[in-house]
């Protein structure tokens, strides 16, 4: 196809021929822009829709959560762990020197207000949900959470201590609306 364009546009050397070349180039460029513009809405439609974005925040009443208990809430289709930590857990989390951590982060940087720890309950390895929310669950070697899929151990600050996961459990964007409730997202 390209060959025949060339053969038709380069026959002879009249000025009209170069004009056609320029015109063709402009037209082709315009058409290419048009085709690109057509792709835009299709790709755009794949993004999270407005109703999905509108549900991107979740409010949680934390008043019924007793010391040492956790709840799991749904946020953007993912579990979020909200843990009312005990004084021992907090102390254990803060006693660890940063040099021992795979993904160094002080416990204070992972919380908004004591004694609450709020993290996304999705293992940073390949997306499983770690155990440790129920009192009967295995909590791993560091008394936090344990991912049964590939054996990642998280501590009481939900930091990765052992296993294949590369980073600590993610802290979502959240804020305290009062002493009794938080808003995630």
């Amino acid at each position: 196809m390209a060959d025949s364009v060339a053969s038709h546009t380069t026959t002879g050397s009249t000025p009209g021929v170069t004009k056609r070349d320029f015109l063709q180039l402009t037209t082709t460029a315009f058409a290419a822009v048009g085709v690109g513009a057509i792709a835009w809405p299709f790709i755009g439609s794949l993004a999270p829709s407005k109703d999905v974005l509108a549900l991107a925040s979740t409010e949680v009443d934390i008043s019924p959560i007793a010391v040492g208990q956790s709840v799991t809430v749904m946020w953007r289709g993912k579990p979020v762990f909200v843990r009312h930590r005990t004084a021992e857990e907090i102390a254990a989390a803060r006693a660890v020197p940063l040099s021992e951590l795979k993904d160094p982060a002080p416990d204070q940087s992972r919380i908004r207000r004591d004694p609450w720890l709020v993290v996304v309950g999705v293992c940073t390895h390949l997306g499983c949900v770690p155990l440790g929310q129920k009192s009967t669950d295995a909590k791993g070697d560091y008394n936090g959470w344990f991912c049964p899929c590939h054996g990642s151990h998280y501590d009481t600050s939900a930091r990765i201590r052992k296993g294949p996961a590369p980073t600590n459990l993610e802290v979502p964007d959240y804020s305290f609306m009062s002493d009794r409730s938080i808003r995630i997202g």
Partner: protein
Amino acid sequence: MGMGLHDSQVSNPVLRWIDQRLPVITMIQKEYGVFPTPRNFNYFWNFGALAMINLMIMIATGIFLAMNYTPHTAYAFDSVERIMRDVHFGWLIRYVHMNGASMFFVVVYVHIWRGLYYGSYKAPRELLWMLGVVIFLLMMATAFMGYVLPWGQMSFWGATVITNLFSAIPVVGPTIVTYLWGGFSVDNPTLNRFFSLHYLLPFVIVGVVFLHVAALHITGSNNPLGIEPKGPQDTLPFHPYYTIKDSVGIVVYLAVFAALVFFAPNYLGHADNYIPANPLVTPAHIVPEWYFLPFYAILRAVPDKLGGVVLMGGAIIVLFFLPWLDTSKVRSMRFRPITRIIFLLWTVNFFVLTWVGGKPAEQPYVLISQICTMFYFVYFLVVLPMMGRFEVVMKLPESISRAVLGAKASLGGGPIPGTAAAKPMEKA
């Protein structure tokens, strides 16, 4: 070049490596590059390319709509509204798809009309024509099932009325209808299977379109004169002459399409389809989408259930026999003075059928639809067979180039560009 490799003329080494093993580039060159095409096409010959573009638009928008649509009676209507409101550009994709159906029928009706006027259905293009009729039937089925999916009042009652047509079939009719429905009325199972088939059929259409185009490239295109090209002086290579001419048509078509989508997206639809389906209340005035109206008028012209269905089906089936019903040796209506006039009247008649199909089933509309139905069939079953025998046709030009260039051509009036291409290809 090893044994069994295709003798590729492509210069780029990577492309040549591919082309030697799978000669797609050679094929495209041959079929869309140098393909010898009659030099005298008018703009009616754009509509095949337009239909192709339209099919691609429908499939692309349809796939993206299906990502957000829920085929369940309880959610279908709301999921369409969610597409219109919450999905980014959802309204655009949906309106393009919705109006694309109308555009598709406009384009295909003009394409069919062109075939009828210029005798494109005649030998040796009979099979090409029949494949086209198959595409038309598949389109009707696809469009009908697509219209059911938003699950509005017209969706529901259209589905009810059209599926009930099959109950006219003696003995097995009611069973067929029950099987179509998957129940005892149009309901969730019906919606589910319609969605499945609405997604499938367009790809079947793609397959038949491929055969349609393959058959076209065996016989070569017809042209407004209806005489076969006699040599290179009668043809031009498809590229660039017809690629650019088709491009002009495509841009004009897109502009009309865009005007509809952006400024009157619901003009061709029915207000009732924005009311959720209600199996207990039939809308006061139900009509199918405009592109089915001529056939709907034929259906209603007969005061007998089976008779109406048979005639409506016959209106399309008769097209399959058209190559043999038209006994004239001359293709183009340009050279058939009497048949031409009758055919133009038939065209008007088709518009009247469209109009009357949208009217209530009462007088005088019923009478008009009966007269028009009669004329529709008389043209195919009486006029065309008779005219081939009795009509005195005008003298055909000696060749396309002679008709186009005048007598000078045969005297060798200078080189004619793009005549290097040879006869219509013989399929490898």
